[in-house]
């Protein structure tokens, strides 16, 4: 029988900012032994996760998610909240631990969490508080949870030691403006660190399914002969901007993989759809991103992709999200033949699931970087 956790581990305890390291050690000393003197918890750490948020409230919100991160990625999580306009200035810090029981009857596994809230001018001292706390020798991830990735200059020291930044273009209020800005940021970051976009990661299964359509050798030639790509996303969903960003990313991914060359700037129609014309080795390719109403789909669930290719006979490849939400129907239809269809599972991943997945990768993601570069060209940068 495992002894219950000591209260100090469960709820955040405010500590002196100057004594953070010592307080963390004390936290583990007190947790290390149960009432019987028997060791009841194991401290686990595979990385340092820095989380940047815009307010103290946002810090407590993300604090609730960190427990789900530490189950899969044991880490020292440091939540950094900056409120530069708040008065009076100052810095407060809290420590706590997230624990879980991987195997019934075994020891609990705990990861530590530090929350630092900086107000007023003190926001400039954030790196000074945070950097001594990163675990030496382990990767450092920065999860940027603010709506846009526009770090203030005082973040520079933190970015210099960061191995990978996690942003979420799904939170961008204006994807058509904010995504091209991200392109520039990624270019500036250069070889120093990797970039992950959680919204791009959510699209990985879609990219997989599109790629699978062209795995059969007899269908592969159609890829070079694609003439029209249509991506439909939800017009009225609260996640519309996230889906719009995904549609942009998908179009840019196809363009970069296929070496298409944007021939003309995008045209925007009255229904808010955007159309690009690309030049390919086989002629012109039209790519349309279309917001539309979906009937019967779960919220944020609908997303259809169609690729039409010339040839003799021509072919059409489609991926359609079903009303069940987690089901996608893929169809490869060559004119004059029985279409090959199937249903596969495609769950809408929660933010924290995507973060957990991304924390397993280090280094740069070249396909994503090339996609961003193409996106920049599509935006006329």
């Amino acid at each position, binding site marked *: 029988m495992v002894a219950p956790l000591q209260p100090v581990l469960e709820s955040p305890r405010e500590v002196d900012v100057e004594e953070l390291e010592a307080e963390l050690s004390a936290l583990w000393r007190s947790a290390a032994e149960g009432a019987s003197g028997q060791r009841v918890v*194991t401290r*686990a750490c*595979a990385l340092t996760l820095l989380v940047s948020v815009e307010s103290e409230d946002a810090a407590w919100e993300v604090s609730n998610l960190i427990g789900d991160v530490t*189950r*899969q*990625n*044991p880490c020292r999580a440091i939540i950094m909240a900056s409120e530069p306009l708040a008065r009076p200035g100052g810095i407060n810090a809290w420590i706590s631990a997230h624990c879980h029981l*991987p*195997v019934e009857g*075994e020891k609990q*596994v705990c990861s530590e969490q530090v929350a630092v809230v900086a107000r007023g001018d003190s926001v400039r001292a954030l790196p000074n508080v945070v950097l001594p706390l990163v675990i030496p020798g382990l990767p450092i991830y920065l999860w940027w949870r603010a709506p846009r990735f526009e770090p203030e200059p005082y973040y520079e020291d933190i970015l210099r030691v960061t191995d990978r930044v996690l942003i979420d273009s799904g939170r961008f209020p204006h994807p058509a403006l904010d995504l091209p800005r991200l392109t520039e940021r990624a270019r500036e970051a250069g070889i120093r660190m990797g970039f992950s976009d959680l919204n791009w*990661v959510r699209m*990985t*299964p879609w*990219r*997989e*399914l*599109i*790629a*699978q*359509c*062209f*795995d*059969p*050798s*007899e*269908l*592969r030639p159609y*890829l070079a002969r694609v003439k029209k790509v249509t991506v439909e996303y939800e017009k009225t969903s609260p996640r519309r901007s996230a889906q719009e960003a995904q549609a942009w990313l998908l179009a840019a991914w*196809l363009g970069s*993989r*296929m070496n298409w060359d944007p021939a003309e700037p995008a045209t925007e129609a009255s229904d808010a759809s955007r159309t690009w014309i690309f030049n390919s080795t086989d002629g012109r390719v039209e790519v349309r991103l279309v917001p539309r109403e979906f009937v019967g789909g779960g919220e944020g669930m609908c997303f259809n992709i169609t690729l039409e290719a010339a040839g003799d006979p021509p072919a059409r490849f489609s991926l359609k999200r*079903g009303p*069940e939400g*987690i*089901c996608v129907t*893929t169809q*490869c239809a060559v004119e004059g*033949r*029985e279409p*090959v*269809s*199937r*249903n*596969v*599972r*495609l769950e809408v991943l929660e933010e924290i699931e995507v973060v*957990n997945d991304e924390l397993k990768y280090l280094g740069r*993601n*070249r*396909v*994503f970087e090339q996609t961003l570069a193409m996106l920049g060209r599509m935006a006329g940068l």
Partner: protein
Amino acid sequence: MGLGTEASSVAETALLANPLREGTRVRKTPAPCSIVIFGASGDLTERKLIPALYYLAREHLLPVSFTVTGCAKSPYTTETFREKARQAVQSHLKIPASEAPFLESFAQSLFYISDDFGDVKAYSLLDSMLDRFDRERGTGGNRLFYLATPPSFFPVIVQHLGRAGLAKTRDPEKNWTRIIIEKPFGRDHASAQELNRTVTSVFDEEQVFRIDHYLGKETVQNLLVFRFANGIYEPIWNRRYIDQVQIAVAESLGVENRGAYYEEAGLLRDMIQNHVLQLLSLVAMEPPARFAGTAVRDEKAKVLRAIRPIPPDAVNDLAVRGQYGEGFAGGKKVSAYRSEPKVSPSSVTETYAALKLFIDNWRWADVPFYLRSGKRLAKRVSEITVQFRSVPHLMFRDAIEDIIEPNVMSLRIQPNEGIAVRFGAKLPGPAMRIRPVQMEFRYGESFGAPPPTAYETLLLDCMLGDNTLFNRDDAVELAWELVMPILDRWKNDGERDLAFYEAGSWGPAEADRLLQRDGRRWQRL
């Protein structure tokens, strides 16, 4: 997933030519193919193969165009087979109702032929059906045959596949044809050789995937990563620093409803000849030049070739066999092996075996490898323990009274997969007292996501043409060659020297004496 692929894999090369597959995040999926399962109405198909294939299909790890054709004598129709498959998935994966569309989509890829596959005529129908799938369902001329029948059917099915022209790859530049053969691969050295001859007279060795599901386990694969992706272990992984290696595969269950099979097989055939010797070869092999099928399998075979043969007259000095009697398991009284269903009351079949082996090469000369495996032991655990030599000079000898335990590294395969290192540490206080402490790494604590099952891993590897985790003909024969003197001696000895142990214990005392003679003891598990 296997660790490497051969550069020559046609399907792999073809997939890489798809520019949308660039980048590591898009998972590899095999080329379109038809899977044919012989023994489709059997237990293995229901419990393992169908659930594994469903899982792969649901997670879109299978190609868009794939079919599974079940072949067996049972008078099913395609619809009956589909219904059985739906039930198998429901019962073994406990899927929620929301998965009904995937299950239905998967079921529509299943077909069934009821015929006597001991008769060559049945294969022409199969041939025409596979051709039809290529034309109508885009399966691309790629074929995977899975022999999930009782072993006695293996040779005849292989020969008929050959005669029907189904073993040949249509166009080696574009297609592949592969065959998976379940264990047991032979029941002795001669029958394994004979089966290898039959199989390789029809298929090329590169087409043959001999499955040992143990090798598909995540932790077993991790042995390779542990040894060859970390720089700190390899320099001490040899006779200079290692005193002994122990490999234990213990089961708490008895033979359950497999009494008839077990009477024929016994533990040495069922566990040591395959699983345990596979683990030994992974622990002891030299670093392969690269993580690809041939390189890894070459090194594994070299280890098996270097194991010192056990002469018939030394069997009793180097091997112990036992059989469980009555006892307790999980707090309940359980019967003796001889009282199990379909077991002879005077059976001399071993349910426990322990061996002492030596590997005659530069790395391992004189380092004993102690292997043990058994049914109805105290708990279910598979573990490799590497005990290091004691320090050459103990500077604390005069200052302390404690016995200093040697360092031990434990590689736990199941359950609670992980790695632990035991070392000595000073007890706090003014006196110099040393206690062994344990430093542990557990997969469940560091990586929350559950790994795929062994069958999912191995089926996918086979479709991708990665044979790293499958057995090669020479390794199978070498393993049989090694155990044959023991099997022969035990057969001749009848009940003599068969040690009985209480169910729920750690095996017979004779096994303890095997190590005590060397001044050693089994590691506590």
